[in-house]
C-alpha cells in the first residue's frame, strides 16, 4: 500500500528499517540518468537503485521481501553525493522511504530531502554501525523516530541523532515547503532588487 507523501509537521516516524551499506553512494546510483528522461516524478519509485538491483538479481535491499513496507533507511558516509537531481530523494520517497539516518549526507541531497519532508539525521560512525548491526539482526523490529528528542529507538535501545537547527525547525513546524514563506517577502525582495548594481544599470555604485 502506498503511504501518503510527507505533509505538514514531521515529528514522529514509525516503521521498519533496512540498510544500504557503503560510503560515497552517489545520486547516479540512486537513480541512473536514463530515468531522468521524464517530465513527472511519478514513476521514479520503481526505478530507485535500478542498476545495483539488476546486478544483484533480486537480492538488493530494495528487492528483499522482508524490506517491503519498510520506511527508514540507514546509510553510511557522504550519502547522496554527485548530481543535484531531486529525482534521487523523489525516487526514495516514492518507493516508501520517509526517514534516512546516516553518518553524513552530501549537501544538495540533504536540502532536496528537506524540501520534500524527508529528514536526514546523522550520528557518529560507531553509532551508525551499531544501529546497522541491530537493523540487520532483527529486520522485523519497528523503530520509533522522535524528532523533538532527536532519537530513534526500538523497545530496548535508543540512538541519539543530530540535525542542524534550521532543518529541525522547518520539519518540526511543518514549514519545510519553503515557497509560501519566500513569497511572503515580496517587498523585501523588491528592495533587494533595487540595491543590486547589476539589476540597475550599475548606476548606484558610481
Amino acid at each position, binding site marked *: 500500500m502506498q503511504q501518503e507523501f510527507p505533509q505538514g509537521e514531521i515529528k514522529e516516524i514509525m516503521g521498519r528499517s533496512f540498510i544500504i551499506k557503503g*560510503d560515497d553512494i552517489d545520486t547516479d546510483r540512486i537513480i541512473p540518468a536514463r530515468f531522468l528522461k521524464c517530465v513527472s516524478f511519478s514513476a521514479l519509485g520503481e526505478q530507485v537503485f535500478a542498476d545495483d538491483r539488476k546486478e544483484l538479481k533480486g537480492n538488493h535491499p530494495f528487492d528483499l521481501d522482508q524490506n517491503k513496507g519498510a520506511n527508514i533507511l540507514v546509510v553510511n558516509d557522504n550519502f547522496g553525493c*554527485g548530481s543535484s537531481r531531486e529525482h534521487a530523494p523523489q525516487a526514495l520517497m516514492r518507493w516508501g522511504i520517509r526517514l534516512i539516518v546516516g553518518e553524513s549526507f552530501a549537501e544538495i541531497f540533504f536540502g532536496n530531502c528537506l524540501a520534500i519532508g524527508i529528514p536526514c539525521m546523522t550520528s557518529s560512525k560507531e553509532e551508525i554501525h551499531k544501529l546497522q548491526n541491530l537493523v540487520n539482526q532483527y529486520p522485523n523490529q519497528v523503530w520509533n523516530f522522535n524528532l523533538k528528542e532527536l532519537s530513534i529507538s526500538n523497545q530496548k535501545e535508543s540512538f541519539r541523532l543530530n540535525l542542524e537547527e534550521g532543518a529541525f525547525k522547518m520539519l518540526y513546524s511543518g514549514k519545510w515547503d519553503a515557497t509560501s514563506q519566500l513569497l511572503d517577502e515580496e517587498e523585501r525582495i523588491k528592495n533587494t532588487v533595487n540595491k543590486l548594481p547589476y539589476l540597475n544599470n550599475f548606476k548606484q*555604485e558610481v
Partner: protein
Amino acid sequence: MSSETLYDKVWNFHQVKELPGGSTQLFVGLHLIHEVTSPQAFSALNEKKLEVKYPNLTVATVDHIVPTSNQQRPFGDPLAEEMLATLEKNCKSHGIKFHGIGSNSQGVVHVMAPELGLTQPGMTVACGDSHTSTHGAFGAIAFGIGTSQVRDVLASQSLAMKKLKVRRIWVDGSLQKGVYAKDLILHIIRLLGVKGGVGFAYEFAGPAIEKLSMEGRMTICNMAIEGGARCGYINPDETTFEYLKEKEYSPKGQEWENAIKWWKSLVSDSEAKFDDEIQLDASSIEPTVTWGITPGQGISIKEKIPNPEMLPKNEQQIAKDACKYMNLEPNEPIEGTSIDVCFIGSCTNGRLSDLQEASKIVKGRRVATGIRAFVVPGSQKVAKEAKQKGIDKIFLSAGFEWREPGCSMCLAMNPDKLEGRQISASSSNRNFKGRQGSANGRTLLMSPAMVAAAAINGKVTDVRKLLQE
C-alpha cells in the same frame, strides 16, 4: 579595515531576510534552467497557480538530452522530444528567453551562459544542476539546486539557504607544460577528498590560479562540487574583465566602467578571515588520472594503482569496490591501461581552449585502431569558433567524430553511451559506477589533452611524451 571574503560581500548584497533557524532567504540574480530538472518545477508552479516572478532573470537552454549526431526535430527518442517540447512550452507561456537548437547560442548551460556574458562577478547564480559551481570562476556565488528549489526561484526569485564556511585554497607556482586546470582540480580533490568540501565554499586563489585563463578557471570551479563544495569561486581580476568585455550581455560604455569598479570592490579583502586555509604548489603536479569510482580516486600518470590495504582505513572499502568494479590490479601502473572510447567535451572541458589543446596532440596523428573517439563541443559558439580555426578538420582527419553540442556521454542521457564493460578516457567530471550509460561501463577522468593522447595510443598515455615528439 574590512575583513570580508567575496563570498561574504556577495551574500550580503543578496540577503533578503534571515529565516528562523539560521538559514537565509537569498535573492538569485541569474537563474539558469534546462530540460531535465525544470519540468516538475513548472508543474508545481502551475498546480499552485503561481507566476514566474522575474521571467527576465531566468534563462533557458537544452543540453542534457540532445542527440549529438542528428538534431533534426522531432528527435528520434520520443522522451527526449517530449522534454524539449515541454521546456519550449514552459518558456513560451512564462516569457522566459530560450536558447534552443538552431539559435546559435544553445549549449551546455555552464558553457553557453558564461560565453554570452550572462554570468558576471557579484551575482548569485542558481541552476538545477550541481555543476553550477562553474560560474564561480567569475567571482559569482553559484550553486546547484534541486527541483523544489527551482520552483521556489521561479516563484520568488529567491531560495532558503544556509551560509557556507569558506576555505581558501591557495595555489603557488605554475602548472608545468602538459599539465592543465583539470589536473590541478583532480589533484585538489584527491588531497581533500570527495566530501572534504561539505559545508564549505572553496575560494581558489594564488599565483597559479591567477595565471589561469577564464576557461581554466571554469574547469576548476566546475569540479568544486566533486570535492563536496557546493560552490567554488575565484576573485575577479583583469583576466575576468578581459573575457567579459564586449560579450553580448556584458554592460557597455559608462555602465562597463561602473561595473568594473563594483566588481573590484567585491574581491576578498587582504585581511579577510577564512574558516580554513590550505596551500599547495602547482609546479609539482603531474598529469592526473582517476582509476576508481569517485573523482577523489586520482593518481598522477607516474603512479601505480594503489593497494587498498595500504590506504587510510576509511578509504579501503571504497578502494576495494573500485578495483573490483574497474577490473584494475593494485600496484599496476595506470599508464598503459587499454581503453575503448575517448570522449572530449562536457561542462568541465568542452570549451574552445580545451579542444585547441587536445587538437595539438592529435594533429598529424591517427586514432589507434579499434578506438571510438569523439569530440562534442560545449556549445554552438564553441563549435563555430573551432570550425573557423580548422580544429574540427584536425580531429576529423585523425579519425575522431565531430559532433553537435550537448552534454553527451558525460552522463549519457542521449544516445552517446558506453556499451557493456567498455572503458573510457573522458574529459568529463564523474567516474561513478554506470555514469556513462552502461551499468558496468568504466570511466577514467583526465584532461582533454590526455584524452587525445589516449586516443592516439589506444591506452592511457603521458601527454607530455606526445608534446615532445
